[in-house]
């Protein structure tokens, strides 16, 4: 059963149509890679999933319930919107860690703020915070950062910062974790450590949507691939099949740039 269903998404910026009738679905525990040339709308699509942009048309459903429908008026209160957002996690290209907090504090912040809304917060404050800290430490350890928890972002390498950002996104246990070119801002020798972590998440059956230019990685790790061009989904299907045996001419042209280089 599909955990995520995206139907007929359209998005304009002014008069330019950036996404045209984008539809896809993703099964629980699967990884979807989105590939495509620069400006094809990949980031915009992820931003729509995370409510950072509002699509002009289409619906988004998670676990079978519609969380976004462009046809309905958007008169929602902040609380509802925030709850819907939490279905998705987001890992940004440029990490966007909070510079004034340590790695551990970055991971714990959102969970601590959310805990304040729990009815039992006042009574069990100490215990709740202790649990959150334990959770944060476990996540950073899982990311191989056990000895970097008290470092500030500027004291970490790009690869380490991105792994903190992944831990931060995992902290709220999103149903679907989105990555926007998680390794493009990194020096080549640092991409490996981040890809390894994402590979580990895929093996643990984390549902993920990954925008990437790493074709080998997409082929090996993703179950499904979407190739986008000019805001349209040109081809989608099984990851290995799309990469090894693309059906569309545009996909072939795009992929040939990677195999030649």
């Amino acid at each position: 059963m599909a955990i995520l269903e995206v139907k007929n998404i359209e998005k304009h910026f002014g008069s330019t149509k950036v996404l045209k009738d984008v539809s896809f679905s993703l099964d629980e525990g699967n990884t979807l890679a989105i590939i495509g040339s620069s400006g094809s709308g990949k980031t915009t699509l992820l931003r729509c999933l995370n409510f950072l942009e509002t699509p002009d048309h289409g619906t988004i459903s998670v676990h079978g319930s519609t969380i976004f429908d462009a046809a309905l008026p958007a008169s929602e209160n902040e609380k509802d919107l925030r709850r819907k957002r939490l279905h998705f996690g987001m890992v940004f290209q440029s990490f966007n860690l909070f510079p004034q907090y340590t790695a551990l504090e970055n991971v714990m912040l959102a969970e601590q703020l959310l805990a304040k809304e729990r009815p039992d917060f006042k009574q069990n404050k100490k215990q709740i915070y202790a649990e959150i800290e334990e959770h944060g430490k476990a996540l950073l350890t899982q990311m191989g950062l056990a000895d970097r928890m008290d470092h500030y972002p500027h004291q970490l390498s790009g690869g380490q910062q991105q792994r903190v950002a992944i831990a931060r996104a995992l902290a709220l246990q999103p149903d679907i974790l989105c990555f926007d070119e998680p390794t493009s801002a990194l020096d080549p020798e640092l991409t490996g450590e981040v890809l390894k972590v994402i590979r580990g998440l895929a093996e643990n059956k984390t549902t993920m949507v990954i925008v990437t230019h790493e074709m080998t990685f997409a082929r090996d790790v993703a179950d499904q691939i979407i190739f986008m061009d000019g805001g349209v989904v040109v081809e989608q299907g099984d990851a290995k099949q799309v990469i090894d045996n693309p059906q569309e001419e545009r996909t072939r042209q795009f992929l040939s740039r990677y195999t030649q280089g």
Partner: protein
Amino acid sequence: MPEMFWSVNQSLLVALVDTFKIFACTLIFAIPLGLVLSFGSMSKIRPLKYTIDLIVWVFRGTPLMLQLFVVFYIPGILLHNNIWGSGTDGRMLATIVAFSLNYACYFSVIFRGGIEGVPAGQREAGEVLGMTKSQIFFKITLLQMVKRVVPPMSNEIITLVKDTSLARVIGVVELTHAGYAYIKAAGIIWPLFYTAVFYLLFVGILTLLFNYIERRLSYFR
């Protein structure tokens, strides 16, 4: 001679109180007003934005001394009534009004730079983590703004210390005025030059304070 030295010190210290009054009141009023103006200048409501941009342009584009004259004399000329009241309190009040308006305009530009300087990605990272707007402001962007704003603000605030001497043009007996008065009253000029010591001490203390704040905020980038 020593008696003279002590009496000069005494009267300069009295004048320093007024200097400090202008300084402190200007900060108290100009900082919140500057924040309001900075929000206005970032507003999506065009007429509001343009009005505020115009005000800021006028106050930053004309001499503070001229603004003091205008604020002090124009109401009397237009309304045939001195709204500032007679005597020293009225002069002080007019000074504080002119200084607050002028400095609010400078501060608004600094605040705007501080607010816009925080990358949009910081706010977005908070949003996707389900934070409320106020949580994002207080827990994420505020401190980053403060860090950006401290160095230019310390410059302006140090300039303010010395600008207080302009208040003498509308008759406020601040430090420079008090020092200058000795030329006519006692035929001595050294008290005027001696006021520099007071300004230097004042600015020195502020410099230490700002260095301390910058050091406290240097743990992150």
